[in-house]
C-alpha cells in the first residue's frame, strides 16, 4: 500500500475520516451484496423447489391429490402457515375439487371470496387471514385454479406482505400449476366419458331394456353359473327375488330329483360346459313348490378376447301349453284305449252274432242235403236268405267300423290275382251274368288290401245284384288300370241303373235307391268312407234302365 510522506496531522486526520467513510460505505455495499445474494439464493431455492413440484405433479393422477400437493408446496415455498388450492368451474359456478374437508373448506372459501381477511370460523379451526392469493384460468377452459397462501390471524400483524418479486414468483407458481390441473381434469373427464360410453353401448341398452320389460324370465349368471341378476318377470314367474337367489345356481333351487329326464339335463350341462347356445324344455318348481314348465334358452356372452363373461338365460313359461299337451296326450291315450276296446268289442259282438248264424247256415245246408220234400225246400231257402242278409249286415257294420278305426295299412300284393279270385267268388251269386276283367299296367300294387277288398266286393256285387229283371246278356266289366303312383278301377254294368233323383244320395248312410234285394244302405256309404280314408276319388254315373258305371282311383 502506498503511504504518502510528509503529511500534516490535519491532512492525516482527514485521510482517516475519508477512509472510515469509505469503509462504512463498503460495508454497507457489502451488506447489500450479501442481502442480494441471500435473496438470490432464496429465489434459486424457490425455483429448485418448483422444479421438484413439477416432477411430483407429473406423477399425480387426480385433481384433489394435485391440489393437496400444491397447498403443501405453497407453505414450503412461500413461508406461510397454510396453503389452500381449489378448482372451480366459472361457467357453472361450481367447485370442482379442493383439498380440504368440511369446516376448513368453508373457512378457505371465505378467505378466497373477495380476497379479504376475515375472522375465524366457529368450528375450532385456526383462524386464518389471507396472505396472498392468485388465480389462473387456462385459455379455452372454464376451469379456474385458485391458490391461497394464508397465515393465522394472530400472526398476521407480524407478517410482511409479499415483495413484488415474491408475488411474481407466487403467480408464476400458480400459472405453472394450472396446466397440470387442466390435464388431469381433462383426462379424468375423457375417462369418465369413455366409461359412460362403454356403459351405454347400444347393445347393452337394448339388452337391459328387453331384460327389464320382457315377460320372459331373464337370468344373468357368471361363467360358473352363479346368478348375478334376475329380472322382475323371473321373480313373478318363480316367486324368487334377486336377494333369494343371488350367487346360487338356478338348478340349486328350481330343480328337484326326477323332475326332468336325465338325458335333457345332461344335454344342458354339456352345452353349458362347452359354452354353446342351448334351448331345452324343463319342468321346474316355483318357490311355493308348484311345478311349472319353461322353455329355457341360454346364451353365453364373450368379451372381445373371446373369454366367457356371462351366461344369459331366458326362460319362457310354457306351463299352459305343456299342461294342455299333457292333458291332450292323456285324453288321446284314453281315447286310443277306448277305441281299441270298442274295436275288440265290435269283433266280439260280430263273432257272437255270427257264430250262431253260421251254425244255422250249416244246419240248413244239412237239412237241404237231407230234404226230400219240395215244400220244405222253399222255406229253407227263405231262412237261408234271411240268414245271409243278417250276416251281410253284420259284415258291413264290421267293415264300416274297421275303416273308421284302423290306420291305413298298405301292403304289396298281386292285385290281378286278387281281382280274379274275387270275381270268381262273386260270380257264383249270378252265374248268368258274364264278368270280364280288362287289365292295363302292372299286376302288383301297394294298397291297403283289406279296404280295397271291401271296396271292390261292394261295387262288383252291386253291379251283379242290380241286373235287369229277367235280363239275358247281362254283363259286368271291370277295367283296371295300374300306374306308377295310382290305381283305378271302373266297374260298368248294363243293369237296371239308378234314377236321376237318387244319384246325389247314393253315397249317404242307409240310403237305398231300391227296395229290391238284400241291401242295407251301407255298401256305397262304406265305399265312400274307404276312398276318403285312402285319399282317393269315387264317382258314380248311371242311367235308369241302361246301367251304372262306378269308378274309383286310389293313390299308391
Amino acid at each position, binding site marked *: 500500500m502506498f503511504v504518502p510522506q510528509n503529511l500534516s496531522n490535519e491532512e492525516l486526520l482527514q485521510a482517516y475520516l475519508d477512509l472510515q467513510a469509505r469503509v462504512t460505505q463498503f460495508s454497507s455495499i457489502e451488506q447489500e451484496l450479501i442481502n442480494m445474494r441471500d435473496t438470490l439464493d432464496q429465489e434459486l431455492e424457490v425455483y429448485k423447489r418448483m422444479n421438484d413440484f413439477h416432477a411430483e405433479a407429473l406423477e399425480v393422477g387426480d385433481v384433489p391429490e394435485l391440489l393437496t400437493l400444491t397447498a403443501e408446496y405453497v407453505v414450503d415455498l412461500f413461508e406461510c402457515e397454510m396453503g389452500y388450492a381449489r378448482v372451480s368451474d366459472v361457467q357453472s359456478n361450481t367447485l370442482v375439487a379442493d383439498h380440504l374437508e368440511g369446516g376448513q373448506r368453508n373457512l378457505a372459501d371465505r378467505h378466497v371470496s373477495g380476497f379479504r381477511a376475515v375472522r375465524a370460523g366457529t368450528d375450532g379451526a385456526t383462524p386464518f387471514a389471507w396472505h396472498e392469493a392468485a388465480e389462473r384460468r387456462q385459455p379455452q377452459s372454464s376451469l379456474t385454479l385458485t391458490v391461497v397462501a394464508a397465515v393465522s390471524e394472530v400472526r398476521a400483524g407480524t407478517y410482511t406482505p409479499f415483495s413484488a418479486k415474491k408475488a411474481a414468483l407466487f403467480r408464476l407458481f400458480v400459472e405453472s400449476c394450472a396446466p397440470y390441473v387442466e390435464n388431469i381434469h381433462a383426462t379424468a373427464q375423457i375417462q369418465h366419458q369413455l366409461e359412460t360410453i362403454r356403459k351405454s353401448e347400444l347393445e347393452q341398452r337394448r339388452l337391459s331394456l328387453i331384460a327389464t320389460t320382457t315377460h320372459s324370465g331373464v337370468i344373468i349368471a357368471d361363467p360358473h353359473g352363479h346368478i348375478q341378476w334376475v329380472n322382475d318377470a323371473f321373480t313373478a314367474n318363480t316367486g324368487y327375488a334377486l336377494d333369494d337367489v343371488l350367487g346360487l345356481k338356478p338348478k340349486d333351487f328350481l330343480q328337484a330329483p326326477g323332475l326332468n329326464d336325465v338325458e335333457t339335463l345332461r344335454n344342458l350341462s354339456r352345452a353349458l360346459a362347452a359354452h354353446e347356445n342351448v334351448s331345452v324344455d324343463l319342468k321346474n318348481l316355483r318357490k311355493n313348490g308348484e311345478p311349472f314348465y319353461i322353455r329355457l334358452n341360454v346364451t353365453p356372452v364373450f368379451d372381445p378376447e373371446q373369454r366367457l363373461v356371462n351366461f344369459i338365460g331366458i326362460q319362457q313359461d310354457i306351463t299352459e301349453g305343456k299342461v294342455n299337451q299333457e292333458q291332450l296326450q292323456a285324453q288321446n291315450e284314453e281315447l286310443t284305449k277306448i277305441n281299441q276296446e270298442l274295436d275288440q268289442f265290435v*269283433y266280439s259282438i*260280430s263273432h257272437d252274432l*255270427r*257264430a250262431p248264424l*253260421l*251254425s244255422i247256415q250249416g244246419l240248413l*245246408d244239412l237239412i237241404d242235403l237231407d230234404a226230400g220234400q219240395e215244400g220244405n225246400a222253399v222255406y229253407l231257402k227263405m231262412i237261408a236268405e234271411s240268414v245271409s242278409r243278417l250276416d251281410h249286415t253284420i259284415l258291413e257294420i264290421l267293415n264300416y267300423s274297421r275303416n273308421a278305426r284302423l290306420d291305413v295299412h298298405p301292403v304289396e300284393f298281386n292285385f290281378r290275382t286278387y281281382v280274379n279270385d274275387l270275381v270268381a267268388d262273386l260270380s257264383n251269386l249270378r252265374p248268368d251274368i258274364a264278368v270280364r276283367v280288362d287289365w292295363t299296367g302292372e299286376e302288383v300294387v301297394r294298397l291297403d288290401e283289406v279296404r280295397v277288398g271291401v271296396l271292390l266286393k261292394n261295387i262288383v256285387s252291386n253291379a251283379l245284384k242290380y241286373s235287369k229283371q229277367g235280363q239275358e246278356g247281362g254283363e259286368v266289366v271291370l277295367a283296371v288300370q295300374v300306374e306308377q303312383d295310382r290305381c283305378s278301377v271302373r266297374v260298368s254294368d248294363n243293369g237296371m241303373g239308378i234314377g236321376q233323383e237318387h244319384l246325389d244320395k247314393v253315397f249317404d248312410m242307409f240310403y237305398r235307391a231300391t227296395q229290391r234285394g238284400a241291401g242295407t244302405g251301407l255298401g256305397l256309404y262304406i265305399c265312400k268312407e274307404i276312398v276318403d280314408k285312402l285319399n282317393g276319388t269315387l264317382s258314380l254315373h248311371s242311367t235308369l234302365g241302361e246301367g251304372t258305371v262306378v269308378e274309383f282311383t286310389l293313390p299308391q
Partner: protein
Amino acid sequence: MSAMPNYLLIDDDDIIQFVHKNILAKAHPNAHVTAVFSGAEALAFLVDCGDEEWPQMVFLDINMPMQSGFEFLDGLKEAHPDLHAKLVTQSRLFLLTSSVNPRDVAEAEAHGEIERLLSKPLTVQTVEDLEKG
C-alpha cells in the same frame, strides 16, 4: 286220401261241432271223425293217438274260451315238440273261423303249420275241394 280217413275237429261250440261232424260225414261217409271241445282235450287225444287213428286233417277253431287255436298250437310246440312235429308232417291243419279279423289272418300266416283259414260253416263242397288238394 285213404279209404277210412281220420278227421279231428277242435271247437268249443257244440252246434257247429255237430254241423261239421255231419258235413264231414256227408263228404266222406267212411270217415272217422273225432270231435273235441278244447285244446286240452285235443292234446289228451293226440297223446294217446296211435298211428292208425292219427288224423289226416285237423280242423281247429281259433276262438275258444280257455285257449285259442293259436295258443293250442304254440303250447303243443313248446311242451310236446314231438306231437307238434308229427302233426305238421302227418296232418293237414286247417283253422276255422267265424270272424273276419285281420289280426287272425296275420297270425294264421305267421303260423307256418297252418295250411288254410276256412270260414265257418264247412260245406260239403269245401271239404271235397280240400280232398282234391
